[in-house]
């Protein structure tokens, strides 16, 4: 069998390779190429060199949305992971009703971001109505609104990953620790946390990238209002691509810059957390 696989390697790899090339590689290369051109549709591009990049960095909206995105990501990564881990911890200890609660908490993740954005817009505006104000009255409302909605959406997913990690910790290790007389907190800190590092790696990676790339929720919830003060970097890219004539290339350049920033951040994060992983 092994031999057969090796022999037919090229055929076996073809479907995945084709999918990868068509859905990822070609658009990616085309995207980079377009960032050096001026175009209205992708078929009539004209080469203009680095001008798009110069314009992207001169655009103060781009930089402020980048800053806003970083702020959002930091808050979001902390809150999502803490809450998800806490819930996972609770729901992997008790017996009764855990399946029910796991399902309930996981559910929001199945909703699309746009739908979720509109739902939360109604909810938050409903709450803020008591204070005679609305979501778009200040950047702080939009910011925290997005944090709440994103948390609501992501906690369930991350929780499932943490539960899997926690359940993977062998009972023997825990028993041995118990006999040695560790406290509950020590058990968590010294035994469980180091052993679920792989889960943490995945969760950190997913929360960081998803917060950084968050778009649909942003568009539906605030669309950047008031002004551009709650515009995430992806929304800024989208707006420069579609709302200004002749600015498509600049949007493209921004997207390429965005890709490199995101890649740098997530690779660093992966290296850092990987280092802390231990064999179970």
């Amino acid at each position, binding site marked *: 069998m092994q031999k057969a696989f090796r022999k*037919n390697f090229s055929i076996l790899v073809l479907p995945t390779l084709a999918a990868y090339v068509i859905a990822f590689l070609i658009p990616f290369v085309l995207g980079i190429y377009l960032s050096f051109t001026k175009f209205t549709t*992708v078929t009539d591009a004209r080469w203009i060199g680095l001008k798009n990049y110069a314009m992207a960095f001169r655009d103060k909206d781009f930089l402020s949305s980048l800053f806003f995105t970083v702020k959002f990501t930091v808050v979001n990564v902390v809150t999502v992971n803490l809450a998800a881990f806490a819930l996972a911890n609770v729901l992997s200890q008790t017996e009764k009703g855990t399946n029910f609660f796991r399902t309930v908490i996981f559910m929001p993740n199945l909703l699309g971001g746009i739908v979720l954005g509109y739902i939360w817009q109604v909810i938050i505006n409903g709450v803020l109505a008591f204070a005679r*104000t*609305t979501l778009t009255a200040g950047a702080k409302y939009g910011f925290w609104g997005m944090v709440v909605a994103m948390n609501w959406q992501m906690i369930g997913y991350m929780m499932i990953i943490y539960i899997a990690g926690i359940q993977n910790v062998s009972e023997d290790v825990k028993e041995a620790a118990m006999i040695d007389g560790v406290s509950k907190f020590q058990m968590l800190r010294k035994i469980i946390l180091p052993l679920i590092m792989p889960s943490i790696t995945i969760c950190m990676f997913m929360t960081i990238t998803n917060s950084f790339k968050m778009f649909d929720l942003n*568009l539906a919830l605030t669309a950047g209002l008031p002004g551009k003060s709650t515009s995430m970097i992806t929304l800024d890219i989208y707006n420069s691509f579609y709302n200004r004539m002749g600015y498509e290339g600049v949007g493209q350049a921004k997207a390429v810059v965005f890709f490199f920033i995101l890649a740098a951040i997530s690779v660093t994060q992966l290296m850092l957390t990987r280092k802390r992983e231990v064999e179970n």
Partner: protein
Amino acid sequence: MIRKKLLTCCLTACLAVSMLAGCGNTGSEGTAQDGGAADAGSGEGQNQTANDAGAAESQGESGKVYFLNFKSELSSEWEETAAAFTEETGIEMKVVTAGSGTYEQTLKSELSKKEMPTLFNINGPIGYQTWKDYCMDLKGSEIYDWLVEKDMAISEGDGVYAIPYAVESYGIIYNDAIMKKYFALPDKAVEINDAKEIRNFETLKAVVEDMTAKKDVLGIEGVFGSTSFAPGEDWRWQTHLANLPIYYEYRDKGVSDLQEIDFSYNQNFKNIFDLYINNSCTEPTMVGAKNVEESMAEFAAEKVAMIQNGNWGWAMIYDLDGNKVQEENVKFLPVYTGVEGEEQQGLCTGTENYICVNSKISAADQKASLEFLLWLFGSDTGKSYCNGILGMIPPFSTFSDGERPGNPLVKEMLAYMNDGSLTSVSWNFTSFPSQEFKNQFGSYLLEYTQGNMEWDAVVEQTKESWRNEKSLISE
């Protein structure tokens, strides 16, 4: 062993083929209605090339029409019209409707495809600058001959590239029943006795503010519907209302476009805008949550007496469940802002609907597309669709005065247009620099409404934004 190997190979091959075919197929999604449908169906998943060839063949014979529609509220109506066209002429036609507010995006991606729209809309001179490579010269066409006012078309050099096909008006829509109730009050603060006697801002303001004071007697929650400012719902202010100060500024300077504006009529804008937000059923701090549909619903349910919108708004009023307002009471008033001599001002009338024939498609398709336009605006069936479900007022000589849609706002609009003593305000927002400018202006207005920005700052930033966005175009 050998059998196993064969099986593996076969399965992999199947997978690969089905996948490749699957990818290729997406390009032809949703094409072809009658003739081509069988073709596309049989070719599914296995014979992509044959499918393509078949399509090309039929193209060569008769040509097809692919219309990209930009009015999302009229999607099923356009499809019905297209079906009628196919039935009468045998020419295949497909209509795709872009989602609300996403027309430019859709156009951008559809024009990148192999099967491009043959007919598409642009919103005016600015849109033309973006899409001029795709616009065919229509100078010698019959449809251009039919156009009543030739300078309404968008031309460059000797060519004519986009033709307006629907004239629209907007102003302040009011409910005459409530107005009559007000004018019948013994203690009203004004002399006049009918809403049509409101001929300037001063009178409008007096009436509106007095109505607000007496809103409990009148049984309304406010005079104006909510000043909608939810994300993407602010076009009635940042585009339509903004047209008035720009129109007067252009008029004073005798131009039709400017690189920089003085916004000299900003106080007039503020006049009417303040009147809207202070006499509305929704308090200023809450407008950020309201959308256009809610505002129109307030009007339809007789919770408010007035609302700024256009003749297309009739569908929203009429369609609403539980609408109370009677058809004969729905009337138009021009938007008065306190400009000198505005007694002679009419409604804001113009068009954002220009039709272009794609220049990069086959001659047969172009011919078919032109034929569709002639059918729609020239034949009896086509015209009945314009007057019926499409509710359009095409500016073509083929329509006589009797042949117009029956909705109350259109009737009012035609009355205003035919009144020789009034001058319509043209639509100058087609020269606004970009969507980005409108969005920025809208966000300043929202901040002003919520009390976070001074009016002077709004004026300064708007001028700045205009200049920036205009300079980006010329770069």
